[in-house]
């Protein structure tokens, strides 16, 4: 998947994840903790695209999460967190299977990426909140919620990450982990 279709797919995935996250999953919330579907969709995208795209996607998705209706925190916090997630997961995945030929990442890899990405993202978000003193909660409470959310995210990752991966690789003949073509700067002599 390349060209103009990929941003479109990304937008679709992120908006769908956002809508599900704020409308459906509150019914399945566990102590108010809801799985971060947007975060997991960013992780999924990062696994099958290049790190640059994943970073930008994380930034955009986080920005959307920051301004979408239920959000009340300082804008930019989720943007930073998801950007970091996109970069870290993308970079990690890219380094990991750079030798392999393209293809969908293995299922355990998806799970591991989901867990790691969730932990990193939620931690960055919580830390930025601590720095800004945005939610007036103490550290113990914060840690509890972060861990609960990470656990729930791992459960959700089992479904959401493969779904996102499928969404980004569903085009027949698509080469996942394909690099966005860029015009070479250096002309051959």
């Amino acid at each position, binding site marked *: 998947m390349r060209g103009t279709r990929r941003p479109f797919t990304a937008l679709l995935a992120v908006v769908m994840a956002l809508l599900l996250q704020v*409308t459906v999953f509150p019914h399945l919330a566990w102590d108010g903790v809801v799985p971060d579907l947007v975060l997991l969709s960013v992780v999924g995208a990062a696994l099958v695209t290049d790190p640059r795209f994943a970073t930008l996607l994380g930034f955009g998705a986080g920005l959307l999460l920051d301004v979408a209706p239920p959000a009340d925190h300082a804008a930019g916090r989720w943007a930073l967190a998801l950007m970091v997630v996109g970069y870290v997961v993308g970079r990690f995945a890219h380094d990991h299977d750079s030798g392999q030929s393209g293809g969908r990442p293995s299922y355990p890899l998806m799970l591991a990426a989901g867990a790691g990405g969730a932990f990193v993202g939620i931690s960055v978000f919580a830390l930025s909140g601590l720095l800004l003193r945005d939610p007036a909660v103490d550290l113990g409470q914060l840690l509890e919620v972060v861990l609960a959310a990470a656990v729930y995210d791992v459960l959700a990752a089992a479904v959401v990450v493969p779904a996102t991966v499928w969404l980004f690789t569903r085009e027949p003949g698509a080469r996942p982990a394909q690099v*966005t073509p860029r015009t070479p700067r250096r002309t051959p002599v």
Partner: protein
Amino acid sequence: MSLDTRPPRQSPVRQVATARERQEQRGMPSRSLLVALVLACVALMVVDSTSGEESPVAPVRRVAGEVLGPAQAGVATVLAPIVGIPDALRTNADLREALAAAEADNKDKELELLRGPYDENRRDELLGLCRMTDLGYALAPARVIGYGSAQSFSSTVTIDAGSDAGLRPDLTVLNADGLVGRILEVTSHTATVLLIVDAASSVGGRVGDNMENGMVDGRGGLADDAPLDLRLLDNTVVPERGQAVVTWGSEGGAPYVSGVPIGEVSRVYEELRLGTYRAVLEPYVDFTALDLVGVVVPSGGERVIEAGCTVQGGGVS
């Protein structure tokens, strides 16, 4: 055989890409991009969290809300039946239980509805009793629980307060409208009250207008249309219709304290033989509908409405 006239292909020049180019080839974001994004995030956070209400992010939030709000509402509407499935799966026993609970609740509510006017009247009586403490007496509230029968030819009632509430014989009993009577006997939980309409009752009364003293005698009978007589001590003074009569007061406040309204003069008769005037009093109290009464007690007891009580909400303190 044809000759290949095309120019010989240039042998590819071996390119030595720099480290940065290799990074870019592999899709790595450049360092400047990362720095720019991080700075953008930080700037956004700082601007939004420090500027408060007039944050530049607010309009963006509003626009996002305008777009995503309806989408969220739509998704929620579509998913409502699915989310509601667990609620829809109920066993028959569950439903019966819920129905029984609802019916019991409904019965309670209906009962409450029926008791509503009664409760309001009781509240009004309590408020009236509270107003009566303006006279300066502390009152022990009590409820009339029994009427003496007419064939006993005495007008007495039983109230549900007795010696345990600090009551003793010869205390004044009144209600929100005026004087009711005095206590004859007490048991530990009840007391017998002699109404002022009883034939044996005689109350010192005073005409409020001219401070003339007299005696108010009961004629016996609750529903009589002329239950009370007033005889003034001074034979030369003629009572006038409409004059209010209050208690005169006994020594030591027993059996009757002073200043409690009794009734007003409705008719005046001249008794030729005695050369006196007899006035018929219309009592302020409706003796056939007594409910809440107050007994004048020394202040400071338990469950006593003190003088100058205040009414808060529906309660009295």
